[in-house]
């Protein structure tokens, strides 16, 4: 079981490396360094804090985009050249194919976060850089998993990209949307209905606002609750999403 999962994940990783993803990440890192140089010239005070916050924000958003695009295009190519059909035709269970693919993308996320860890070592305490990188690895893996589910389920590149990006924005903003719905003027019946709908949607989505916060790299003070929160969120939702993905794949006729 493990050997087939590992083989599939290894091939996913090799595909990423051959697809020059590492070069794209290197280009992003160079852009982030140039941004930090620009900020160091523009900021009047708190230069390090400004550099770190903008670099972390830029790297997070751009890497999430790269990961979503890579996962969707990679699986779309598998559909086009029929290699996904080949995989399902051999005697490897579908759940192993799914988990193998996810592990491969998660390994790539690990590599990317590892590079960023070394960058932030220059700007922040090692402990803060480490926790931010681990958290970002989980965030990137979760997004890879969601994109994998969408492209396998929808088999449509444009739709999967739009939904993955939309869901990412929604996950990041969900607590703000929820708190806006709890204002003093929001006690009408219709508002209550909308609020409960939003609460139900929020249950199905991980709270990505708890992951890789730029402020961790600035103040170097990360509470135990911060760490436990993102760890538990990751564990719960990764299990839930893998089950959703496997269930969907099992009922699919490919």
């Amino acid at each position, binding site marked *: 079981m493990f050997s087939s999962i590992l083989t599939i994940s290894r091939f996913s990783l090799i595909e990423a490396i051959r697809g020059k993803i590492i070069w794209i990440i290197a280009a992003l890192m160079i852009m982030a360094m140039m941004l930090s140089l620009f900020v160091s010239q523009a900021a009047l*005070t708190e230069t390090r804090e400004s550099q770190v916050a903008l670099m972390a924000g830029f790297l997070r958003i751009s890497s999430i985009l790269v990961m979503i695009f890579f996962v969707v295009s990679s699986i779309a190519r598998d559909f086009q050249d029929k290699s996904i059909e080949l995989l399902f035709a051999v005697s490897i269970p579908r759940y192993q194919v799914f988990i193998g693919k996810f592990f491969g993308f998660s390994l790539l996320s690990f590599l990317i976060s590892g590079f960023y860890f070394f960058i932030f070592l220059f700007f922040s305490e090692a402990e803060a850089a480490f926790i931010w990188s681990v958290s970002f690895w989980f965030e990137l893996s979760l997004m890879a998993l969601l994109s994998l589910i969408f492209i396998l389920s929808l088999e449509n590149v444009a739709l999967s990209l739009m939904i993955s990006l939309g869901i990412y924005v929604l996950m990041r903003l969900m607590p703000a949307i929820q708190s806006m719905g709890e204002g003093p003027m929001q006690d009408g019946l219709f508002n209550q209905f909308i609020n409960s709908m939003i609460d139900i949607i929020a249950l199905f989505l991980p709270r990505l606002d708890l992951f890789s916060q730029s402020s961790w790299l600035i103040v170097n003070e990360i509470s135990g609750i911060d760490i436990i929160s993102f760890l538990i969120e990751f564990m719960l939702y990764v299990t839930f999403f893998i089950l959703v993905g496997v269930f969907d794949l099992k009922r699919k006729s490919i």
Partner: protein
Amino acid sequence: MLKKGHHFKIQQAWILLIMFACFITIMLWRESTIYQRPKLLTLPDVPSESAMKLITASDQSFAYRMFLLWLQQFDVQAGQYISYRSLDYEKLINWLQALNKLESTSQYPLLLAARVYSRVEDQNKIRLMLKYVYNEYKANPVKNWRWLAEATITAQHKLKDLPLALKYATALAEEKSTSIPHWAKDIRLIVLENLGEFEQIKLLVGGLVANKTITDPNEIRFLDVLMKRVEEKARQNGE
């Protein structure tokens, strides 16, 4: 085959010709006055509290620093610098207030207020900015005392408004917190000296030394020098 090749070459020539015409049009467009006319932007209103919450929810530190740099660079527009005098200071203060709420440990908005925006050549705008610094000091003296110290100096030397400088210096001196150093609290004595309130200085210094608020030998020496200078000035004024 030859005919086809000939036809292809004619097509290529046409494409090149249209491309060239496009390029010339682009150059003319870029050179046109409509394109070059710079549009002066005015500072927008601060988003409502809930909109601000939504904008910054994803990553508060990132959004905070982006907004700060944007605000700080707002005077540089479309290849020209606009004077701080043309900025709407009411809106600017609203922005600084909103940003100051986002990151409790940061000093950046107060630095912009005390050191950048209060350098404007407009007395009313300076007063607005200093009032903002004073209000922020009142809200959190321990964090913001040094910006009020700078505001006091601005009021004294740039505005030449000694009563206003005394108001700020007194607010600093009367703060009980030990995190405000004595040099900042002593600014009141210097403002009083400039106001010619020699008797009040004597009373204050006497009180500070008597109730052992000041124990540092260097600071006592500074107060001694100040007292001697004050007495000399009082003698010259015939008090």
